[in-house]
């Protein structure tokens, strides 16, 4: 992340000089900061609400129900984390929320999962294989219905806004398969290479 950030800032500075946009750069930086604060203020409501709901659901044991169909695959992907009740619940909650398209419900559970995995695997600042796998799965995970995109398309006056739902579902299956495979292969290549 550090390297990427430095490259982005350096590219911005160089382009600003080349295109003569130097004086706009400071304003843009502040605008970005303001957007971050606005986004987080909006997220506060969503995070508090969904974390609350997830906690209540956990207290009920609802998640054991959700996790059952996913369990065989997850056990293979996360042998260490899946042996731990807390990590298992957080991982399942995150993936289930992602599948339902509830991105704001997914984030708090996902962060809790990473925090727990860090304790379990006793890693200081380096991502473990299971953490990498979890993040890639999270990012490429199957989404059952792309509600936001369909709503935007309907608002733009589409004749049948939902006709992209099936290709989108198939495409997320493709990204999930490629994501898991790439993570698995890279983990091995990097260990032996």
């Amino acid at each position: 992340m550090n390297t990427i950030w430095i490259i982005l800032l350096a590219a911005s500075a160089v382009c600003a000089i080349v295109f003569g946009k130097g004086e706009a750069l400071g304003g843009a930086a502040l605008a970005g900061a303001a957007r971050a604060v606005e986004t987080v203020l909006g997220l506060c409501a969503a995070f508090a609400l969904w974390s609350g709901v997830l906690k209540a659901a956990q207290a009920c044991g609802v998640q054991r129900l959700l996790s059952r169909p996913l369990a065989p695959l997850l056990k293979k992907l996360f042998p260490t984390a899946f042996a731990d009740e807390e990590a298992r619940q957080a991982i399942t909650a995150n993936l289930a929320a992602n599948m339902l398209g509830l991105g704001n419900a997914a984030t708090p559970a996902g962060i809790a999962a990473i925090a727990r995995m860090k304790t379990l695997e006793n890693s200081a600042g380096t991502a473990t294989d299971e953490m990498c796998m979890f993040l890639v799965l999270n990012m490429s995970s199957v989404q059952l219905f792309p509600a936001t995109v369909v709503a935007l398309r309907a608002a733009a006056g589409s004749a049948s806004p939902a006709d992209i739902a099936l290709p989108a579902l198939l495409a997320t299956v493709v990204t999930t398969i490629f994501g898991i495979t790439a993570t698995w292969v890279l983990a091995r290549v990097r260990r032996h290479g």
Partner: protein
Amino acid sequence: MGKFIVPALLLALVGCGALRGVKLYDAFVEGAWEGLRTAARILPYLLGALVAVEMMKISGAMDVLSALLRTPLKWLGLDSSLSALVVLRPFSGSAALAALQDVFIQTGPDSPAARTACVLMGSTETVVYTISVYFSSQGITKSRHTLPAALISMLAGIVAASLLCRVM
């Protein structure tokens, strides 16, 4: 489908809590606290990412990047109007949605390019943003192969979106 998810989940939750005698409200409040703490914890990371994105946009660096991507995207079968979407997608969900709306305005919401853009949007994620929020906020600074693997998965998504929209 979206119409039924929330009421169904809510009913399941309330019904289950009542049957098992769980203190739902106490659990909810405890969870809400955790959610607020999470929001506060990710703010600095999000701020850093969005400052960089805005500076990339105003300086013209983002335009340079999408111009560079135009030819490789053509090889993958994508319309050149999608290059801004592909560049912004890894960094910011809302910026990518704005780019998607631009595609709608340029080509109409039912054009092949717009449909491909929708599938792309629905099957890819804000890779860089997610890594910084999930990992950095937990003190994980070395993400190892997470980014390359996520980008490979995104590339597969681009090819799949382009192919699937031709046949469906």
